[in-house]
């Protein structure tokens, strides 16, 4: 299949909808979004952008699909922020910087990483993880047993 051209058209039209980084696909339990000092209730279908922060409670989990097909899920008791998200749907060139201050994060890398390995980075209080096309988990603090 001519996946690349199809994908190009797909993301071109997706980009026309808004300059959003991605979309909330899944919300369970207590979780909210912080945007420009405002606290917003999370719901499926809500767009997420650069500088958004997702905070989850003890029973909260959130799943996000990004414009480049990167997938992320934020686990319980977590604090996660999208620091930078840039993606060119034509060239697939992009930069994706996020920060996990506490809690857990699972991810599947997308087109940004396929185009430029390590252009997707997860920052934690003491380290930076560069992703080279893979599935991963990051935990800051003790994991729930």
């Amino acid at each position: 299949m001519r996946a690349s051209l199809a994908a190009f058209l797909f993301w071109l039209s997706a980009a026309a909808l808004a300059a959003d980084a991605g979309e909330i696909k899944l919300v369970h339990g207590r979780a909210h979004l912080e945007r420009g000092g405002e606290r917003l209730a999370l719901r499926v279908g809500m767009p997420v952008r650069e500088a958004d922060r997702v905070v989850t409670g003890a029973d909260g989990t959130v799943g996000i699909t990004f414009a480049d097909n990167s997938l992320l899920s934020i686990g319980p008791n977590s604090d996660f922020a999208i620091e930078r998200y840039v993606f060119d749907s034509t060239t697939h060139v992009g930069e994706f910087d996020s920060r996990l201050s506490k809690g857990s994060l699972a991810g599947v890398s997308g087109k940004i990483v396929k185009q430029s390995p390590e252009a997707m980075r997860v920052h934690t209080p003491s380290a930076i993880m560069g992703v080279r096309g893979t599935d991963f988990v990051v935990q800051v603090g003790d994991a729930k047993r």
Partner: protein
Amino acid sequence: MAVLAVAALIALALLTAKPVAPVETFVVLPSADGHTGAVVVERGEKRQLLNEPYAASRSTDGDIQHLSAAAVDRAYGRTLHSLPSRPASFLLYFITGTDELTDESRQELDKVLAALRARPLPDVLVIGHTDTMGDALANDQLSAQRAERVKGFLIGIGIPGERIRIAGRGERELLVPTADEVDEPRNRRVEINVR
């Protein structure tokens, strides 16, 4: 005076005491297709490459650890199970010159619709194509008609129309390259991309 000195010492101790840093763990997982990529963890001057399934870097251990799949599932199962569905792509084929599905694709359609129904709020792109029979302009129209037809099926299972984008590519993107005026069933298709 002594009280002040003690207070000053306590204040100094509080200021210089380092909070205990949380343990940080990074784990590489095999992906759904079985392939394992890599991550690089940079902690100050130190750089660790994790490129084997379940290889883990912990801020409290110097060396790379190897976890079991069961341990990863115990610790991070809830988080992992909250990942959105992987983007997927499906093909349906048409009877020559029409926007009617072939018998085979009509059966396939049920499977495709079931897969789409399982997604909470799908984002869909439907792209129609033709073979090289007939003139290019008519094929542009036919490909758009095919995409429109499939969009109708998707709306029929409750996917909101504004979440479905369609395009007709005519005979520009042949799945099987052919000369002009060639009847090629595999080129008479609609692509459904969902995420």
